[in-house]
């Protein structure tokens, strides 16, 4: 029996183990779940070590060391020591007495991420989207575009009205808010429909694995 066949059998048995939870909780499911969690943790530890720690930290420090030996100076690779220092601070969470030092690393991560994301998010998901909703309500000779533009403008405007809570939702204002909630509900419906399709796709993939690859029934 080849390694590939053994792999397929293990995959199929563990898939059935996870599916068995749909009937009720049982030791077979618990074993499959524990195995999945354990292997995932081990896998990600190895990936993190070889794909992040070694190439991004260790190799760069080695470069810095070789620069020091050959040129007598280090150009910029010393900066990775700073990253290593913050990494060590993060691990200090394991020492309760000085665990507070890990907040420095977290503050650095949160600060740089916020700074990096702010401008990009504002432009791509804010300003560009606002610009995208400023549309002519009448496109001559193109009825589809006209209807589409009206829907976009009305939907955006009424959706925003719904989230304006400083004024009571009454009269024309309330009517616009009600239209807004309809647009929001239709959006949620679209998201839900797509999510159902996504989950069904995963199930189809597993069923295809069981019946097609494992059992070879078709």
């Amino acid at each position, binding site marked *: 029996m080849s390694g590939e066949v053994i792999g397929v059998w293990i995959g199929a048995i563990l898939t059935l183990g996870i599916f068995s939870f749909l009937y009720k909780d049982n030791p077979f499911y618990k074993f499959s779940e524990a195995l999945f969690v354990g292997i995932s943790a081990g896998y990600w530890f190895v990936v993190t070590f070889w794909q992040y720690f070694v190439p991004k930290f260790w190799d760069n420090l080695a470069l810095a060391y070789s620069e020091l030996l050959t040129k007598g100076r280090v150009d910029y690779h010393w900066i990775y020591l700073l990253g290593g220092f913050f990494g060590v601070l993060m691990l200090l969470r394991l020492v309760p007495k000085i665990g507070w030092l890990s907040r420095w690393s977290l503050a650095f991560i949160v600060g740089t991420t916020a700074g990096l994301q702010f401008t*990009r998010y504002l432009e791509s998901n804010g300003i560009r989207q606002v*610009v*995208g909703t400023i549309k002519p309500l009448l496109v001559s000779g193109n009825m589809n575009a006209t209807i589409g533009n009206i829907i976009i403008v009305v939907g955006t405007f009424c959706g925003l009205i719904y989230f304006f809570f400083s004024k009571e939702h009454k009269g024309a204002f309330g009517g616009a808010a009600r239209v807004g909630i309809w647009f929001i509900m239709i959006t949620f419906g679209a998201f839900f429909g797509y999510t159902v399709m996504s989950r069904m796709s995963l*199930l189809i993939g597993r069923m295809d694995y069981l019946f097609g690859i494992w059992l070879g029934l078709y």
Partner: protein
Amino acid sequence: MNETTNQEKKTFWEKLLSIDRRIIFLFIAVAISVPLFFKTSLDMPVSPVVQEVYNAIDKLRAGSKVLVSFDYDPSSMPELQPMAESFFRQCFRKNLKVIIMGLWPQGPLQANIALEQVFKDEDIKAKNLQYGIDYVNLGFTAGNEVVIDRMGHDFRESYPADSRGTPLSEIPLMKGVRNYDNIDLILNLSAGYPGTMEWVQYAVDVFHVKLAAGNTAVQAPSMYPYIQTGQLAGVLGGMKGGAEYEIAIKNPAKAVSYMFSQAIAHAVICFFIIIGNIAFFSLRKKKTS
């Protein structure tokens, strides 16, 4: 007699509302599994957003360079792998040069699986495609959106070598490729973070590259606003997007065959939603009366 019938009806609806969830699971399992045995292909029109992806690639001249980022892992294979295979088919048939990369550690491995599948096609096998000349796999590098940003300046800042350890300067395909200016189109196959949103934010809006995307269905609705603003050329949304793309390239394969199961499963879900609502409203009417 009427009273007895009403009593039976009430009991029926109540029973229906408290149906064991395992029965519904069973219905879904059957609805998904049985159609897999019938090799039925549903005839479906290609939606404009999918057609745009096809057109964006189809317009490129032979020898154009396309970059594809595999930002997903095996858990999203049923949705995204058919898109990857179709993309490779279209590119290789058009003699485009394909540069593969990944922001997810397992992404470039998914690319290898897709390539292995595509190389079984007779017409593609006949082209005798060479690694490093017709396609190259740069592999994974850590850094998420920072990788995208640095590649905008110089690919070598993020990828000094390909996944086999060959320096980019020694790879024929990478000669003349410095940054996004030398790439004609980017396709991002994404299942989450980092993914299409990051490519839009850091590649499209900063370096003005042309980007198309293939997404899991969960993500797809969030991507459609980018099409309207011109930030995305087109989107392949979930399994249906993959199936439509297979039809567009005239190579119906896995996604198309899966869509029959998908359709039957959706019909069963709709049936249960309708039945559940009828039961709920009839019971509520009974209670209020």
